[in-house]
Structures are given as C-alpha cells and as structure tokens.
C-alpha cells in the first residue's frame, strides 16, 4: 500500500429543501481524514453526521464543495440502524452481500468464515437477523460492510441501540482494522466514544466546530475546570445562578460535587461562587477537563443564550394529599409474555422528590416496568403501587398522578405549540379556567409563549423537548415518567433539560427515568440496573461505580465500567 487512504472534504455544503427556505445540513465543512486510526464524527441528532456520511459514500450529492478520496479502492459503508434484512438469516444476509460485492470462488468461504469468527456470529448463522440482539445485529451489519476488506470504512452511529458490552466489542473489532492501516470514520453522539478516538470532527448544526485530536479540544480548558464540594443546598444555588453569573461557562452536578467550567482568566475563588454563609466546609479543587466540558464551552460560545432564564426557585407542587404513601412502590413485580419472562420479580421503592433511573440495555425490561407503572400493562405477579394506589384496582385514579414523556415526544407535528398544549390539557381532563391558567403557567415557565403559533414539527429538537415536558406537566402530576428524555440531544440542551427536572424534583415531584444511555444515568439520584428482566444492582451512581469498579483500573471508573462488570459477574454466576 503506497500510503494509506485519505479523505479530504473541501467546503462541503448541503441544503435540504423544505419549509422556510430549507435547512442547511452541512455548512462549508472542510477537513482531512487520515488512515490508520479511528476518526470520530461527533455531534448530536440533527448535527449533520448522517448527511456527511452519505455525501462521502456517494449516496448524496453536495450542493457545494467536493470529497477527494485517495488510495481507497474499497470503501465500506455501514448505514445507521441495522440495514440488514430482518427476515433473512445471518448466513443469507452475508451470502447476499458476498454476491453483491463479487466475493466468489475459493475466497468466498474463507472470507465468510473469517467474518463470522471476527464478529462472533458463527453460532448464529441460521438465526433470522430480526431475532438478533441489537449488538449482534450491528456486528452483522459491520460484517456486511467489511465483505471486501476496505481501505476506508464509514460507520454511521454503529453503537446506537447496542448494549455496553457489545459496544466495546464493536469498538475493538474496528480498532483492529484501523491498526492494520484502514481509514475509519465512526459517527457518534456519545462523548465517551469521542474521547477514545484518535481524532474527531465535531459537528454542530451543520458546522464543523472542531477538528483534531480530542485531547487538544480540551486544551484551552486547562486550569478552567473545577469540582466544587459544598452542602447540597449551596451547590444547587450555585448551579441555579450559573446561567446568569459572569465567568461561569458550565455548572453540572456530578455525584456530591458540582463540576464547573469557568471563563478564561484568573482561577475563581470560593468567595466568587458562594455567599458567606454557604462557605462552611466547602472546597474547590481543580479537575481534568473532559471532552464534554470542551464541547459545552464550544457550543456556549456560538449558541444563542437559553431562551428562558431558569426558575429562580421552583414552585411548590400541588399534589401532596397523601404525604405518607411512597410515590412508587414495586414488590416482586413479574410480567410474562407467554413463556417469556420480561420482568422477573423486581422490587424497589422510590421516595418523594427522588430522581430514580431504570438503567439497562434494550430488552432488559425497562419499558415493561414503565408500562406496568403507567397502567398500560397489568402485572402477571407482584404489586405495583402508585402513590399507595394499587394499579390493578384503581388504574384511573393512579393515572391522574402520572405525567409521561416518551422518547419521541409524542407531539402532533402538524399542530402549533399552542394547539398541542390545548389538546393535551383536554386529554388530561382540564377545562375552563383551570385549563387556561395551566397552559399560561407552563407556557411562561418553559418559554413557549413566543413559539405559540409555530408548528411543533418544525421546531428544533431542544424546543420540541421542552414542549413535550410542558405538556406532560399540564395536570401537575406528582410522578413524572421520562423515557430516554435526552438521548441524542446536544449537551447544552441536555443540561438545560436536567436543570428543569432537578427543579421539579426539588419541588417534590418524583421522577422516574428509563434509559440505556449511560450519560443520562449520571443525573439520577439512584439507579436500578436491569439485565434480562432482573434487577441486578440498586444504589446511587457513585456507590455503584465504587462497588463494581473493575480491579486494577487507575482512571476514575465510569458508570459503564460498573455496568459491564456487573453483567460479566451475572454471566459468570449463570455459567
């Protein structure tokens, strides 16, 4: 190989026609992608990652600029979301791609065996692709894209819908290819993946925000990141002030401390941050900047300020009529579908004002528990109490206390913001004066007044999310269910969202979160880790990390490490 493959992007611009003069998915993106390493294409949903991948793969034409591919005879492309045929078996899918890529003769069997061994799919050849787990399906898609050993490999969000263990395996497979000299472009919304790449291209709203090694992205933040230790109440006060306080770029809760990113200049002192009466026992320590810190700093410098200042103090919540009962109490909950046990004797209780997370890969039973708690599915065994009310006896009464926000927001895209709110208010049984008052209240609280006449479908993701949350809170529920509320959302929008959730929790709303997205788990007070229908661990993120950190690690363990250690321990116990 005379020099590895390189891809050069020169002033790529791509517009999509549509409402209001169309949207620019890419705005003059220029970069050079080098061989022999994994280059991360980092950005939130709607940042332009998929468009860029498709333009490079030749599946879309750019409006301006060009893509120069050099020394790459074979370009492998793996589209997003399992583009394999679910009604074909693993072997059928591979045979199809072998035919299409012209892998024939003696080389064919050898290559197929190699790919099967490589991806660990050997024992599952006769299984339909639709019956594979997310991780295995993604490995199959990867094997199809690798049919001819590529010089350049384009992977569009390969780790979405994949459990953490398979995610690591996938990463290792691809790292092996890069080590042999291939060019790899791996797009992701996960920042921990971005940090592991040798180089990253960070996209935000179609613009290239940063290109280079992830380490250098955090460079300008040296000496600007701190952990503030103080009593919880003071931390909250600082966090609330952060949006308006000059000199603070970012403030986010991490376990018992507040992570701060400050503006350039002299290091801050406790006195700048805390009032005199808050300083007792407080400490400020410098910490290593993370990729996320750098991204937030970069986005805050370009983005328009948050459209509404967050509430100074949360309004008290109305539904306090049963102060004794726990908001959510689940005892030996079991749910079977025919012979399949989706939830296996799960027990936990959630306190008022707590943010409680159900964490686990797809198929672990999170959604089933959610559905039982929302009264959409009856349990097969055990009990589920909402505010002390048995769901199997008084479902309607229990439902009145529940607000639900689904992952895809379930808004009506064709209706305006105001019409959506009016509709959901009606659905929740509000009418007359109370309906008007509640709509006015949430509109003010969530900064939706200016957007009242906008079509919900045309709003950016962050605004849609705010509208969905506002709609779920119209009837002042005591318990709020959130289904992967911030997966794929950029970190600035995610922070804004969780600040609101924290404010609600402080006001006494109990928040249940279901997620497979480990970054979201960090925002929960306590986590229940689910795996194959069983609850395998319960505790705060900090406790879980400490208790299940893999031995011999030096870096501070993440929740993902704890999670993987737990799953491995389970697998060993089962074997």
């Amino acid at each position: 190989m005379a020099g590895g493959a390189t891809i050069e992007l020169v002033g790529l611009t791509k517009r999509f026609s549509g409402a209001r003069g169309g949207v620019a998915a890419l705005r003059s993106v220029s970069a050079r992608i080098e061989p022999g390493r994994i280059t991360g294409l980092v950005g939130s949903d709607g940042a332009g990652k998929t468009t860029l991948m498709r333009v490079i793969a030749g599946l879309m034409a750019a409006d301006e600029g060009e893509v120069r591919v050099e020394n790459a005879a074979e370009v492998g492309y793996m589209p997003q979301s399992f583009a394999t045929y679910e009604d074909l078996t693993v072997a059928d899918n591979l045979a199809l791609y072998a035919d299409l890529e012209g892998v024939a003769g003696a080389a064919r069997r050898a290559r197929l065996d190699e790919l099967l061994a490589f991806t660990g799919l050997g024992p599952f050849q006769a299984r339909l692709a639709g019956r594979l787990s997310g991780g295995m399906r993604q490995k199959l898609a990867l094997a199809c894209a690798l049919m001819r050993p590529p010089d350049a490999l384009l992977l569009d969000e390969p780790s979405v819908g994949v459990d953490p263990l398979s995610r690591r395996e996938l990463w290792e497979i691809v790292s092996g290819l890069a080590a042999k000299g291939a060019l790899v472009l791996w797009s992701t919304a996960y920042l921990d993946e971005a940090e592991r790449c040798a180089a990253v291209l960070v996209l935000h709203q179609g613009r290239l925000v940063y290109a280079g090694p992830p380490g250098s992205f955090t460079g300008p933040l040296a000496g600007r990141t701190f952990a503030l230790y103080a009593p919880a109440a003071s931390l909250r006060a600082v966090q609330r002030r952060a949006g308006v306080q000059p000199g603070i770029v970012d403030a986010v809760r991490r376990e018992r401390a507040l992570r701060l990113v400050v503006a350039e200049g002299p290091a801050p002192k406790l006195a700048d941050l805390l009032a005199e009466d808050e300083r007792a026992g407080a400490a400020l320590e410098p910490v290593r900047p993370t990729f996320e810190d750098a991204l937030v700093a970069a986005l805050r410098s370009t983005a328009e300020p948050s459209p509404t200042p967050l509430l100074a103090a949360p309004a008290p919540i109305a539904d306090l009529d049963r102060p004794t009962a726990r908001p959510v109490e689940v005892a030996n909950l079991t749910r079977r579908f025919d012979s399949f046990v989706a939830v296996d004797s799960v027990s936990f209780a959630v306190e008022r004002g707590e943010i409680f997370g159900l964490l686990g890969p797809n198929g672990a039973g999170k959604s089933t528990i959610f559905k039982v708690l929302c009264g959409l599915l009856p349990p097969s065994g055990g009990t589920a109490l909402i505010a002390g009310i048995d769901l199997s006896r008084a479902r309607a009464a229990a439902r009145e206390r529940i607000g639900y926000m689904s992952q895809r927001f379930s808004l009506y895209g064709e209706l305006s913001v105001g019409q959506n709110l009016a509709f959901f208010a009606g659905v929740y049984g509000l009418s007359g004066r109370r309906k008007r008052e509640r709509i006015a209240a949430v509109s003010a609280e969530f900064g939706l007044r200016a957007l009242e006449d906008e079509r919900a479908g045309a709003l950016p993701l962050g605004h849609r999310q705010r509208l969905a949350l506002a709609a779920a809170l119209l009837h002042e529920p005591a318990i709020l269910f959130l289904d992967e509320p911030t997966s794929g959302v950029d970190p600035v929008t995610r922070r804004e969202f969780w600040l609101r959730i924290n404010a609600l929790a402080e006001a006494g709303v109990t928040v249940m979160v279901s997620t497979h997205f480990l970054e979201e788990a960090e925002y929960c007070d306590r986590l229940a880790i689910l795996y194959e229908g069983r609850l395998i661990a319960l505790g705060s993120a900090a406790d879980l990390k400490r208790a299940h950190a893999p031995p011999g690690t030096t870096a501070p363990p993440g929740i993902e490490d704890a999670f993987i250690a737990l799953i491995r321990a389970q697998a060993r116990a089962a074997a």
Partner: protein
Amino acid sequence: MTAPPAREARLAGLRRLRGLMRKEAVQIVRDPSSIIIAFVLPALLLFLFGFAVTLDARNLGVAVVVESPTEETASFTAFFQGSGYFAPRFYTERKPAEAALLRGEVQGVVVLAQAFPEALAREGGAAIQVIADGTDANTGNLFLGYVNNVWRDWLAYRALAGAGGAAEPVRAEPRIWFNPEVESHHFLVPGLLAIIMTITGALLTALLVAREYDRGTIEGLLATRARIGEILIGKLVPTFLLGMGGVAVNTAMAVWLFGVPFRGSFWVLAGASALFMAAALGMGLLISTLAKNQFVAGQVTIMVGFMPAFLLSDFVFNLAGTPGWVQAISYAIAARYFIAILKTVFLAGDVWAVILPNSLALFAMAAVLLALARALTRRRLE
C-alpha cells in the same frame, strides 16, 4: 487471468442478480403478507365476484295487477311465473300494487287493465302498463327488458296457438353470441384476472420496493457494487413469477370452479398475461420509486392502479356508454387492453384481430412504464 475482463464483469453482474433474486425469493416465502397479497386476496376476490356478485336478475319481485281475470290473463300470468326471471305477486287493484312498489317489496308493476281482454280481441291489439322502479337504473332496465321478453313470448305463443289477433307480422328473434346463457360470471371472472394481476403486480412491487426505503436497507444495497438495473430486475423477476403463479391458480379456478368456458389457446393467455404483468410491475415500480414509503405507495397504487382498472376497463362498467373524455382516459389503462384479450380468449377463441392490436398496446405500455421507472430510480438517497 483466465477470463477476459468483459466476461468477468458480466459474470459478476449475473452473480449479483442471482444473489438479489434469491434474497427476494426468501423474503417472499418468509413474509406472509406477500403470500396473502399474491394468493389469498385474489382468491377472496374471485369468490366474492364468482358467487356473491352477479349482474343477472333472477326472481325479480313484480306486482301483477289483473283487474278483470279471464282465461287470457291467466295464460299471460302463467308465462310470468314460468319465465324464471320473476317472483310475481298478484293483485286485482292498482292501489295495493303501487303501495308494494313504494315499500320496495317489488321492482315493478305490470297492469292488465279492465279493458285488456276486450282489447286483445280487437284489431290494433292490447297494451299492458309497466311501471319500473328506476332507483337502481340497472335493475330497472333489466326489469323492462324481461317484461318485454315475456310479453313477446306470450304473443308468439298465442299466435302459434292460433288465437290470432295481435301476432306481429315481422318478429325480432334475439340471439346472444359467445355467452348464450348471458351468464355474467362468464365475463366477470376473466375480467377479474386483470384486476387480480393489477393487485399482485403493482401493489406487491410497490410495497416490496418501498419497504427497502422504509427499513433503510436500500442504503446498504446502494453502497455495494450492485447497479440500479440489477436491483430492479432482482425485484421484478420474483414478483413476476409470483404474479404468474397467481394467474395460473385463478385461471384454473375460473375454468373448473366457476365453469367459465375457455375457447382460446393457453399460449395466447400466457403471453398476454406476461405483457400485462410487465406493465403492472412497471407501474408498481414507478409508484414506489416516487413514494418511497409503504403506506403512501399502497394508497397510490389503489388509487391509480386498482380503481381505474376496475372502473374504466370495460370490466363491469360498459365503456361504450361513457362520455368521450372518459373513453380517452381509458386508453391509458393497461387493464382495458388485457380485458379485451381475456374476454376473447375465454369466450370467443383466438381472434387475432382483437389479440394483436391489444397485445401491441400492452407491450408499449409495459415498455414505457418500465423505462420510466428505471430512469427515475436514482442511485442517490434524495
């Protein structure tokens, strides 16, 4: 290098095509919905049209008013009862008969007035009054026609019996060719083949292609070496075979289950079906290429494929009676040409004067639709 590059490339192309067709075949076999569309839906339609829907009138309710019964009127009413078309009720006054018509219990009223027996004997002849319910024009017309037949038959009988009087000097002797029993099944069932093939051909293709876009699998295909033409042919060949299988099953049902005569040759039917199938596939491909979404593709196929084939093809509704512009539109509908061939092949035999021009029209439509679909399918995802 053992093979020259051109041959090598052709071989690789064939291998890709084989891989795509095999994949499609496996998907069709595994997916119950395509089997349902190809076999169950057509069979259901065939049963519905074969057994339930009939354009023949049998046992029409009729109120016969005989104001002054005589031997003559008795002989006339006996003809009514014996005709098989009618289920007569007898009255002696108009009022209750008209009330029965208003209530919808009978489709029409036949009145033999007080003066009928005398008039019969007179020079110039007698008249009967016929009132038909025109709310359903088709049945109303049938009713009038049948009454006329009975009337004429009776007059003929009287003339033969030597009663004299109103015997007509010249008599029209109606004779119906090709379908002597005027069995509507005999033209409905062959016509149905065209409708069924529009469903299997156009709908199935539209859904199968749109599904690739819906599930995102097209992106993977386009990123391989496969050419657009190969991807399209890989889709068309299995659906074509499936559709032809449907034709075979339905023809067999038509002939053996519904007793439709088959007077032409098998090869003409097969050839014409293949041409029509190609046109239907072309339409399905065109729709799905433009719609790229299973739901929309299905709706559009029903609207522009199924409905016109049903309404404007001379299948049930006679085109000869429609305004000129409707007839003009009907020339753009492939089913029209195919139904002309089908009716000929089933009921008349190989009449080449009908088969050749219609086949030519089908060939032209198939070529245009397929070429258009090919030209509009892009290698890009935009």
